[in-house]
């Protein structure tokens, strides 16, 4: 049964809704509308007047090799971040679930990185791997490896992936730990009596029973990698070297605010808006249909 809330004043409910509506309107609808509007114009260099060009911005984008490359970069980046963060979180959760002594301490420590903002995380990793002053790169140098992510695109991609994934592990860890603890102990014990060793149980019992959690995390992490890793990319590589770590979100910023190509940037925003929409639908569809045993 739905709860029917009644107000004495018929205007009060609208009044109470105003703050949220205002925030959504000012920070979401208005910019989104602006983006759609601007994507059909090319402003002059001084921003004094704009020329209507219809879908020209989109046509240009879809023929721009850099933009298409950015799609590929984003796909690769998202897959890597998701794989690393989900995989590492699962491993940590299984280990944290196994230990008995100091379990709470481990769990608390493993949740901490979630409190670090992506930009800060980026700076942390940047300092560690800075080719000149970074501690890790210095040790790598001692081992005979010349680390320089400013020049090497694979190293750059690796670093942003690791930094983004690290920031996300805690979140995934929490879900996996909850998922693991939701598996009845007796089921695991039954499998042990049936003759399954730890890894056999892991693959045949634990992983299948965690699959709803895993699938949920895959979707959520892809969305994260797509849209929330701007801070990491910006602080560590600024999209470089040679745009090899420029993901779509970063390109919107780079083209619009650095390159001053507002029309193209707006068109990219619209494309991203569509992507978010699709991913959100997938996400909601999935959450509704979540498999329950």
């Amino acid at each position, binding site marked *: 049964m739905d709860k029917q809330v009644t107000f004495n004043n018929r205007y009060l409910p609208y009044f109470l809704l105003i703050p949220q509506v205002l925030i959504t309107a000012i920070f979401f609808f208005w910019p989104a509308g602006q983006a759609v509007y601007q994507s059909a114009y090319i402003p002059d260099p001084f921003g004094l007047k704009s020329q209507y060009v219809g879908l020209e911005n989109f046509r240009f984008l879809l023929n721009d090799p850099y933009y298409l490359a950015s799609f590929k970069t984003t796909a690769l980046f998202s897959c890597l971040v998701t794989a690393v963060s989900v995989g590492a979180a699962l491993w940590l959760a299984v280990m944290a679930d196994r230990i008995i002594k100091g379990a709470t301490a481990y769990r608390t420590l493993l949740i901490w990185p979630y409190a670090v903002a992506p930009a800060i995380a980026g700076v942390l990793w940047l300092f560690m791997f800075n080719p000149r002053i970074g501690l890790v790169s210095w040790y790598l140098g001692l081992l005979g490896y010349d680390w320089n992510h400013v020049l090497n695109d694979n190293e750059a991609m690796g670093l942003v992936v690791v930094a983004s994934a690290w920031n996300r592990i805690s979140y995934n860890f929490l879900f996996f730990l909850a998922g693991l603890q939701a598996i009845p102990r007796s089921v695991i*014990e*039954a499998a042990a*009596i*049936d*003759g*399954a*060793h730890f890894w*056999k149980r892991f693959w045949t019992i634990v992983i299948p029973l965690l699959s709803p959690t895993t699938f949920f995390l895959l979707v959520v992490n892809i969305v994260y990698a797509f849209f929330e890793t701007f801070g990491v990319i910006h602080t560590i590589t600024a999209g470089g070297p040679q745009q090899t770590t420029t993901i779509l979100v970063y390109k919107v910023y780079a083209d619009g605010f650095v390159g001053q190509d507002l029309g193209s940037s707006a068109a990219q925003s619209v494309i991203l808006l569509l992507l978010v929409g699709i991913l959100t639908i997938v996400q909601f569809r999935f959450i509704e249909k979540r498999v329950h045993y």
Partner: protein
Amino acid sequence: MATISLQNVTKAFGKNNVIHGINADVKDGEFIVIVGPSGCGKSTLLRMVAGLEIITDGEICINNKRVNELEPMERDIAMVFQNYALYPHMSVFDNMAYGLKIAKIPKNEILQRVNTAAEILQLQDYLKRKPRELSGGQRQRVAMGRAIVRKPAVFLFDEPLSNLDAKLRVQMRLEIKALQKELGVTSLYVTHDQVEAMTLADRMIVMNAGNADQIGAPLEVYNDPQSTFVAGFIGSPPMNFLNNLFAQNQQLDSSAQQAIDRLLTDLPTEVSATLQQQDNDNLTIGIRPEHLSLCEPPTAHLIGKVKYTEPLGAETLLYIEVQNQQTITLRQAGDIEIPAAGDSCFIRVNTALICLFDSKGKRIQI
């Protein structure tokens, strides 16, 4: 086929001792029920046999082979859990075949064994279903099937029927009993339900706070309880306990005093001899509800007042307050006219079947 022997088995969680040394020998093919109230350590004892709990001290042998250090899978046992513990993502067939697949048994033999078990348990039509699509009783059968197909030396049951409704429980109880007799597999069965224990067991272990108070065949335990705990736990309603029945300084009216005197003279000579030897005040007299009967005033052993009655159809239970505000239960055939609540009533005791217990609740053998 296997024997199990427990030698001075103890269990401690940290500094907390929960099982204080259990000794028991289980013969091949025997159905042993471990019964006791919640928290008495019965499940822990079973889990130690299964290898799911570490044995703090003592020794458990299966087929004369020490198993203390063996993993559950190396002990040749199968266990049925209270919540069934089925693999929720697998079909009924896969649930039963899981252990066999791990044991690398050939496919056609797995098929044959699972089908045989399904036939015994009437699960043929459900082999493709997932556990969530089954009723409680069917899930319980699948859990049993999973145990049967592996042909283990020992079955362990951990309160397998307590999640079922009362009617189904009675039915499954019979099925388990029949199945165990048919397969002849040595079984340990944990329950808190004394009716289950009485009906299933070849022998039962009555546990109380980490100790085995008595081990024996159901009727032996019922008729010859070794402690007030056993006498009170086995049997429903429990045995009546009366304290200070023969104390000298009681303020009784003349008819009550006459009744007590009559009881004293009617006691078997061994009992009255023991009563005279021991300090009367610390003795407890135990008598089962069915060994009391209503009678005419001139033959009464006890006089009391009916507090309330429970007509159950075939029998009627009377709760009667006798001297010293002690309440006793009397079991009476259902077709006999019974006094109403508040009435006085006259009780005759089958004195030959009285049990005596000392101040610590231990049985005094006569």
